[in-house]
């Protein structure tokens, strides 16, 4: 009988842990890109032309790592090293999934938790907005600090057409956060130039243009995607979850302490019971 008592107490404690934990409400929701998700660069001009996806390397560029897709039947590549498949034209479902994600992201993240900063800032996960365009100027570094599950949503132009311009500014990851969980939605064009670090998936409401930028993420445009000297443009899969460097482990530190305590308690009680015999 005592065996059962010994057995049940830690088990009950374990069950209590299971029942006592509750998930916090997560304010920000990453868009579901569906079949568009594997693309590092995607140009989806409704009237596709030779410029729907253009990559030009004038010399200093490093290239693109990842899948490149265009609604036109080819991309324009002048000297860019592209490591990954080129899909041209992409299937209609890819465009449809991208458009669905683009259109849904505002409704999925209706509450803005802050304004997109234009000075150097450390930003926790959240939804950040600007009513009009946003320019992140030279010398500014925005650090997105969180864990592997942290998500950032940036909505540019919530009050009308708004472009995102990054001119020598930087957006970097902090902690164990991953670039894959960063999303920029712009209601107008997106341009990043001479940035030593830019992160995240851009869903541009117009053209997307990058020049001499080290970008980890995805560049997706409702019209043309243009890259000049990518330094590089990299997307090698969306590594999140049980994983992501130093991400949430099988057991958190506190869970390990609790588990060790439960085992110690059960062992302690079992030894005491043995001695009582």
């Amino acid at each position, binding site marked *: 009988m005592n065996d059962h008592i010994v057995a049940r107490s830690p088990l009950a404690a*374990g069950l209590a842990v299971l029942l006592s934990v509750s998930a916090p409400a997560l304010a920000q929701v990453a868009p579901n890109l569906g079949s568009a998700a594997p693309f590092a660069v995607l140009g989806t001009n409704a009237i596709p032309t030779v410029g729907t996806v253009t990559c030009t390397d004038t010399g200093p560029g490093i290239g693109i790592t990842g899948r490149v897709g265009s609604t036109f039947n080819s991309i324009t590549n002048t000297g860019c090293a592209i490591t990954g498949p080129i899909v041209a034209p992409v299937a209609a479902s890819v465009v449809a999934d991208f458009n669905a994600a683009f259109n849904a992201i505002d409704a999925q993240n209706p509450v803005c938790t802050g304004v997109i900063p234009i000075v150097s800032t450390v930003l926790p996960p959240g939804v950040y907005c600007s009513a009009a365009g946003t320019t992140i100027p030279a010398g500014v570094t925005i650090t997105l600090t969180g864990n592997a599950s942290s998500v950032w949503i940036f909505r540019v132009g919530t009050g009308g057409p708004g472009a995102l311009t990054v001119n020598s500014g930087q957006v970097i990851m902090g902690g164990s956060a991953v670039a894959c969980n960063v999303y920029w939605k712009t209601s107008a064009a997106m341009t990043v130039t001479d940035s030593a670090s830019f992160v995240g998936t851009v869903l541009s409401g117009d053209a997307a243009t990058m020049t001499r930028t080290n970008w980890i993420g995805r560049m997706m445009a409702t019209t043309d995607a243009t890259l000049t000297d990518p330094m590089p443009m990299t997307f090698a899969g969306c590594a999140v979850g049980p994983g992501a460097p130093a991400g949430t482990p099988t057991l958190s530190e506190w869970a390990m302490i609790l588990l060790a305590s439960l085992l110690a308690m059960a062992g302690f009680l079992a030894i005491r019971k043995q001695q009582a015999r």
Partner: protein
Amino acid sequence: MGAKAPMARFLILFVVILAALFAAQLTRPVQSAFVLPWTEALARISVALITPLDSHAVAFGKILQSTTNGFAISIEAGCNGIEAALILIAAMLAFPAPWKHRAIGILAGLAAVQALNVVRVVSLFYIGQWDLRVFQWAHLYLWQALIMLDVLIVWLIWIRTLPPPPSPVPAS
């Protein structure tokens, strides 16, 4: 005082062995020889289990990825169930028991923890493709609790299967 000695011995040994095992698994040789290869093997095992039902899953290194939508999970150090197994191993080594029972318990415990961790990885892979919010909840809360319960149940079953300790020899 004498009656408390075995309990104190267990607790002290448990803490010491646990600290030693955790310290050892953080060293570079152990990481490169065991932890990382096992972590990569977990991704391959997961894909091997998935492939008969879903040919759109691939593993490269420690990453498990869907070729359909690009969603991927990366099994990092700490996500491989090794820490949970080490806690169980430390407890079994510290507890007064015959070595044969310790060996059986450790093997069974390793199998139980790692089997459930594979289920965890595969489930998270699909939950993440379905809904990231559910993924985060399952990852952060549900699976931690399940892994803890798994270890706890193995531990309690093992304790119950141990033979009674030898009776003390009466003084002549």
